[in-house]
């Protein structure tokens, strides 16, 4: 295996170890006795002792950390205090819905952000550029929970154009039940040809996906604009200009491809942030994903569940970064780790 690959994998492994340790520290910062939190305030001393024994709370801290790591590795992510189910099982059921929402949001963000960024770069310093920059700055300044509430109220409750909550019409489960393959409703409905559920899901998806898309769309537009302007001042652009290519052709045919490389790595970075921003959106639209799970865990002070979500998203982020770095190392050898 090449040296840069080993270095990069080792680095990612160290970070994952740190992520697990930090999550452990946070879960043990709970004020008061975690045994009391689990067993309830009216538990007898015997019940408390039993809970402590069961969760190893009477062991020294480093033993608890070792046990925690061993449990995580063997798939035991503790039990939710609220749903009383294993956290990993809850996450397994909630994750596909989040992936669906964030995936849809990122598709919208790319579809809007890239062309709009090209437009701004083509007319740099003039009115289209100015309005794109202003709009993209507004998009990254929007409080997501407020945007979600506003769209839900205006286009859902008041105008009635879109459904206000949920993933699809629940009554469809009896009239045209969905066969699960990937657990991602849109994909499953598509491959099994379940049109009632597909159209219902798309209608439910529209508003929350738009909210999720706002921030990444703004960031992508700004990055595409900046990279294109830089590319257009390079020697190759000067040559293309001298050969008589039009400015628009230079941007879209020659400058856009190198500019998309940073956009791809940005999307990997934005992905984890979109999932977390999606938490607030899911809570508003009652979308059955990680966010709704996390928000309900928060209101029940359900530390194991919050820790589970935190760990999952952080590990996903490290993994996404690793994949992007390795891919870029393949595309552009100069970026390989020293």
């Amino acid at each position, binding site marked *: 295996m090449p040296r840069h690959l080993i270095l990069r994998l080792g680095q990612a492994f160290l970070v994952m170890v740190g992520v697990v*340790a930090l999550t452990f520290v946070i879960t043990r910062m709970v*004020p008061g006795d975690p045994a009391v939190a689990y067993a309830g305030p009216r538990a007898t001393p015997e019940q408390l002792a039993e809970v402590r024994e069961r969760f190893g709370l009477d062991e020294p801290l480093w033993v608890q950390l070792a046990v925690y790591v061993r449990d995580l590795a063997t798939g035991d992510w503790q039990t939710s205090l609220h749903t009383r189910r294993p956290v990993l099982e809850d996450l397994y059921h909630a994750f596909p819905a989040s992936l669906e929402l964030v995936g849809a949001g990122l598709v919208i963000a790319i579809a809007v952000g890239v062309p709009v960024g090209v437009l701004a770069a083509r007319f740099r310093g003039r009115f289209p550029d100015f309005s794109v920059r202003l709009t993209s*700055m507004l998009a990254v300044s929007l*409080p997501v929970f407020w945007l979600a509430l506003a769209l839900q109220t205006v286009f859902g409750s008041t105008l009635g154009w879109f459904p206000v909550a949920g993933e699809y019409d629940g009554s469809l489960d009896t009239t045209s039940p969905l066969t699960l393959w990937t657990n991602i409703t849109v994909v499953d409905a598509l491959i099994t040809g379940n049109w009632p559920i597909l159209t219902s899901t798309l209608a439910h998806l529209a508003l929350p996906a738009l909210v999720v898309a706002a921030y990444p769309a703004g960031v992508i537009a700004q990055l595409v604009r900046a990279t294109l302007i830089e590319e257009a001042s390079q020697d190759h652009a000067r040559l293309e200009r001298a050969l008589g290519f039009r400015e628009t052709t230079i941007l879209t045919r020659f400058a856009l491809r190198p500019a998309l490389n940073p956009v791809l790595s940005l999307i990997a970075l934005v992905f984890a942030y979109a999932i977390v921003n999606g*938490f607030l959106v899911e809570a508003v639209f009652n979308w059955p994903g990680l966010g709704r799970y996390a928000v309900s865990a928060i209101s029940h002070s359900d530390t194991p569940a*919050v820790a589970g979500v935190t760990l999952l998203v952080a590990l996903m982020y490290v993994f996404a970064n690793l994949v992007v770095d390795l891919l870029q190392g393949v595309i552009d050898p100069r970026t390989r780790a020293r």
Partner: protein
Amino acid sequence: MSAMPRVARLPRVTDRFALAGAVLITLIALAAVLAPWLAPHPPGEVDPLNALSPPDGEHWFGTDAAGRDVFSRVLHGGQTSLLIAVAVLAVSATAGVLLGVVAGYAGGWVRDVIMRITDVFLAFPALLLSVALAVVLEPSVTTVIVAIAVTWWPWYARLSAATAASIATRPYVDAARCLGVPAIMIILRHVLPNSLTPVLVQLSLDAGGVILTAAALSYLGLGAQDPTAEWGLMVEQGQTLFTTNWWVVTFPGLAILLTAFAFNVLGEGLRDALDPRRIVK
């Protein structure tokens, strides 16, 4: 070539951005600081007889479910939001820059250890780690500050480590080292002051993000608690009334948007005007 005049026009546009952002922030800060004098009502003044009255000459932004004046509460909410932003940025920039400068100047294993620690913190999206921290701590404004600062410092550490590493190779640093100046003095007198400019740009870019994160935490019930006027909390308290009483949610939300927007505009303008790449090199 037609590209030349366009490039030459760019700085003027960006300066306009920076100026507009600076003016907006000054106005918002003034409104927040002068809130006790500007606000027509005390922020906690309950008036059940006038609950949920729409905006009019007496209550510009209407009243909430307890009959409190929304305009006065939005003004006072600015104090909470700006206080959180200033505190978070001060704490995280101080810690981050100090660690980063030491890492960048020292290099070697010191740099490796510090950078791997920052990598761990950077693996958590800010809102996520803040939520996890805020769940286990008592909900309050202080909790919000601590929770966000813990997630924010690594950005400054990473940024100033890069700057410091490039400054550490400069001839004047070599000269100081040859003269026998102790490392701590070199860091304080030469490396630190020269590493600050990119951090200042980053601070104004980040203030908007801090305000959005703080509002989100309060919206989730993990930050400021009821009698306190805080924008995210006001949105949360009014969200079930949105269809019938739009003003309860709309105005605090607009306040968050406007403040975050002002900082982003200023940051963008500063970044373009002071192009950090030129400063680092």
